[in-house]
């Protein structure tokens, strides 16, 4: 039986699960002791600097590094020629070309070369002395430009996948995803009200406060150690190895603390460069991005164009939905157009639908995952249209969603049947909250939206050791971005029945624990947690056996209760974890066990949110008055950090809705690559985020956990736009809802 199928563990009444322990890594993080990527310093370490393309699209005619190599302090210079030719599947070749350009630079900021020198200033001066001859090519910066007939091509061999018949000419469209059901024409014919519109969103950056950093140390015998801050050091190992042309085992990756990721630290940028520079220099090399580089060369999330149309009956029943969606992939294929297509209508029981999603390359940095990747944009379109329909039909926005909400047993638009889910519960929680009844004043508006995200399971491993003093070490390979050490400790404490303070959770390097996929997809508490639970149960089974041996009784006579082995008939004094640890010399040696699994039973997540805001009619400025979110967490292992995920996702979504966007000049250069001009929300922009953690246990997890990290960012885009419409009766379908755009709408220039 796998861990997830053990019914004995699904009952509540927990002692540690659901409590709010101080996080085990907290002291280090409030005293400045925690070591993040850029904090690693090795003896003899050199500093690197990356030369990046100043052009959005250009052929690289030649690169002359001879001057740079002669400069003071310079120990190594690398270009694309220092790496194996791109090979393997298309995705691997794109990865190789994104890390360092070969034939062409495909976006401003694309890596061309890198230098390692004794000081930062020397490395920078040498990088600037590299002579690159470019032949500038015409660029495309939007899906409209990229999909136009005769558009300049980024990749001369890119053939659209998912089109029948297969195309014979290359284009900038990498793929088309389609999800359909029922009879669309019939659905719209049956509709009493049809709402439609074209929606656009701009690329936005994940905006983690810690820039990317990597330190590599390659010894002459070829062993390489890499320190980096990432969402998954095993993935950094395998991706770096692909670019270096190595077997992954040649690399040891040690995880530094990670200063935010949100999906943006799930791929490699600096890591193979640092390794190659170190190999060439014979010294450790550190590479750290500036904020400017983070904006120009990493992330962002796709800009999108979405044409949507929904049909409803007079009673609010959604009967038809049609979506045409194009997602910018950046310079290489791989936008989340597919996920956007799958999630768009997933919360609703619409019988007739057609959803098409296009993955389109443009001359911008290759997009990376960002919290529920793809879903916020398609949800923006769908939830805005639902709001329009509700207003036309005179139905409360919560009620129209309740009317169409998916429940257990419903078939999702993307195929599978939903197990037990908590969507309706989030809608009811909002409807019953006092915030939803507060009267609004002039220029104030209220907006509602909901969102869905799959959540992920994937691969996790854990090893549990009992120390000789009876305390427990829990080793996983999942970087802790938001308190996961605490949730691992709580789950292990629950299993062992000991104080959570006696559990030491550790994030092990790639040679200290089995393989773990990344901290992403809202998967860590669910999947790595399941591995921890399974490893704990193996140790507990062993402990019972040791007690049986010591007492010379059958195994069934021993049960594990409150951190000790007890004889079921009470004929022996109990043996504590410490007693059994002290006796391990006589009972079979040290106490340790590992577990490794493909997590199954992933529980999907739903969120419903309502925002009240006020618009200054003279400036178009939006003040967020109050914000309420309700999200199904299944079971909150550490409620504070669950609330934190919900709140953080909401505020990122508000930034996406109101402020954030990449702005490019006509040459395809980013004009706002800093936090002054790319403005993420600050404390004075925000109210408290009122937070309801709904708990509809996930039947697929021993404690009922659902992932909580991502879905919170899905509803805010539409919730804010719906509130703006409510306040000033202007439906704006283009993000961000900047003051100038709102003022334009108020003055009727743009709506």
């Amino acid at each position, binding site marked *: 039986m796998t861990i997830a199928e053990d019914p004995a563990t699904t009952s509540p009444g927990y002692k540690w699960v659901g409590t709010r322990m101080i996080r085990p890594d*907290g002291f280090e993080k409030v005293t*400045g002791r925690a070591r993040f990527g850029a904090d690693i310093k090795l003896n003899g370490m050199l500093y690197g600097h990356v030369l990046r393309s100043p052009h959005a699209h250009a052929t690289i005619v030649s690169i002359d590094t001879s001057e740079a190599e002669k400069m003071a302090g310079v120990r190594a210079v690398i270009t694309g020629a220092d790496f194996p030719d791109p090979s393997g599947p298309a995705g691997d070749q794109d990865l190789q070309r994104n890390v360092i350009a070969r034939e062409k630079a495909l976006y401003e900021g694309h890596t061309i070369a890198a230098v390692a020198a004794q000081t930062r200033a020397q490395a920078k001066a040498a990088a600037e002395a590299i002579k690159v001859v470019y032949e500038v090519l015409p660029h495309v910066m939007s899906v409209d430009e990229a999909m136009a007939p005769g558009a300049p091509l980024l990749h001369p061999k890119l053939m659209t996948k998912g089109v029948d018949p297969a195309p014979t000419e290359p284009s900038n469209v990498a793929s088309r995803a389609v999800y359909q059901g029922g009879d669309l024409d019939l659905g719209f014919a049956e509709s009493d009200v049809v709402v439609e519109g074209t929606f656009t969103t701009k690329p936005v950056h994940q905006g983690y*406060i*810690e820039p990317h950093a990597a330190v590599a140390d390659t010894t002459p015998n070829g062993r390489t150690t890499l320190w980096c801050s990432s969402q998954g050091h095993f993935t950094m190992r395998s991706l770096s190895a692909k670019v270096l042309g190595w077997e992954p085992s040649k690399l040891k990756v040690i995880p530094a603390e990670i200063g935010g990721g949100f999906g943006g630290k799930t791929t490699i940028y600096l890591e193979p460069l640092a390794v190659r520079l170190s190999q060439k220099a014979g010294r450790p090399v550190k590479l750290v991005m500036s*904020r400017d580089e983070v904006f120009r060369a990493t992330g962002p999330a796709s800009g999108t164009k979405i044409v949507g149309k929904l049909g409803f009956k007079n009673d609010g029943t959604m009967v038809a939905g049609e979506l045409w969606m194009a997602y910018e992939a950046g310079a290489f294929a791989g936008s989340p157009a597919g996920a956007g297509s799958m999630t768009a209508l997933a919360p609703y029981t619409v019988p007739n639908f057609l959803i098409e999603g296009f993955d389109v390359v443009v001359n911008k940095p290759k997009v990376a995952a960002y919290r529920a990747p793809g879903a916020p944009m398609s949800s923006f379109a769908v939830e805005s249209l639902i709001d329009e329909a509700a207003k036309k039909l005179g139905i409360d926005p919560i009620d129209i969603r309740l009317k169409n909400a998916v429940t257990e047993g419903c078939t999702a638009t993307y195929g599978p049947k939903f197990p037990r889910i908590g969507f309706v519960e989030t809608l009811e929680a909002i409807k019953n909250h006092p915030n939803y009844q507060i009267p609004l004043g002039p220029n104030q508006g209220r907006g509602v939206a909901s969102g869905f995200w799959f959540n992920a399971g994937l691969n996790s491993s854990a090893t549990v050791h009992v120390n000789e003093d009876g305390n427990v070490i829990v080793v996983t390979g999942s970087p802790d971005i938001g308190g996961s050490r605490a949730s691992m400790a709580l789950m292990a404490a629950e299993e062992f029945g000991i104080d959570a303070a006696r559990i030491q959770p550790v994030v092990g390097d790639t040679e200290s624990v089995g393989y773990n996929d990344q901290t992403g997809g809202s998967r860590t508490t669910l999947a790595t947690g399941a591995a921890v639970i399974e490893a704990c149960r193996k140790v507990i089974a062993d402990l019972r056996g040791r007690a049986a041996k010591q007492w010379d009784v059958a195994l069934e006579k021993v049960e594990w209760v409150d951190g000790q082995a007890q004889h079921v008939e009470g004929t022996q004094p109990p043996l504590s974890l410490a007693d059994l640890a002290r006796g391990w010399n006589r009972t079979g040696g040290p106490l340790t066990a590992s577990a490794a699994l493909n997590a199954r039973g992933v529980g999907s997540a739903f969120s419903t949110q309502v925002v009240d805001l006020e618009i200054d009619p003279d400036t178009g400025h939006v003040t967020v008055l109050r914000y309420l979110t309700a999200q199904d967490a299944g079971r909150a292992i550490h409620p504070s950090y669950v609330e934190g995920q919900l709140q953080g996702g909401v505020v990122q979504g508000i930034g996406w809705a109101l402020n954030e966007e990449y702005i490019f000049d006509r040459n395809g250069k980013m004009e706002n690559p800093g936090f*002054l001009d790319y403005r993420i929300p600050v404390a004075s922009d925000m109210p408290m985020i009122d937070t309801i953690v709904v708990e509809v246990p996930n039947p697929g997890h021993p404690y009922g956990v659902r992932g909580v990290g991502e879905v919170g960012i899905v509803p805010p885009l539409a919730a804010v736009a719906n509130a703006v419409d409510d306040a000033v009766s202007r439906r704006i379908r283009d993000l961000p809802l900047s003051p100038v755009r709102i003022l334009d709408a108020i003055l009727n220039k743009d709506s």
Partner: protein
Amino acid sequence: MSRIQVSCTVNGDSVDFLCDADGSLLNALRDELGLTGIKEGCGTGDCGACSILMDDELNCACLIFAPEATGTTITTVEGLADGDHLTPLQECFLEGAALQCGICTPGFLVAATALLQHNPNPTETEIRYALAGNLCRCTGYDKIVRAVREAAAQMREASA
């Protein structure tokens, strides 16, 4: 270019270090003194992750040339706690889960320390404006504001 010797007081210690004339105090504190609790999030004074107190004034270390530190008294996040005895702000950040990834936390703690030195009883709005120069991408600020408010209350009670 010859390097400049700088003498100052950092977290109670008299220290000397060498720096370039155009080197930032941020790099000097991190590289020369090993005070890596001070973080660089932007290098342009927009994120507050490198917040320090310099002669009791809140500053971004990335915006100060290292030689300007001569003769000053500097407090960094490493200098807030007394050994393992945390300040009320540090305790309240931990109790209130006011950090997720923790990269911005040193800057917030220093900025909030500066706030409470000047204003022991700030309103929520005052806290939000005082911390508006510190960016946090994880928390949405809710738990940070609550932690500062709670620490202020505890400190007022302790001094009453």
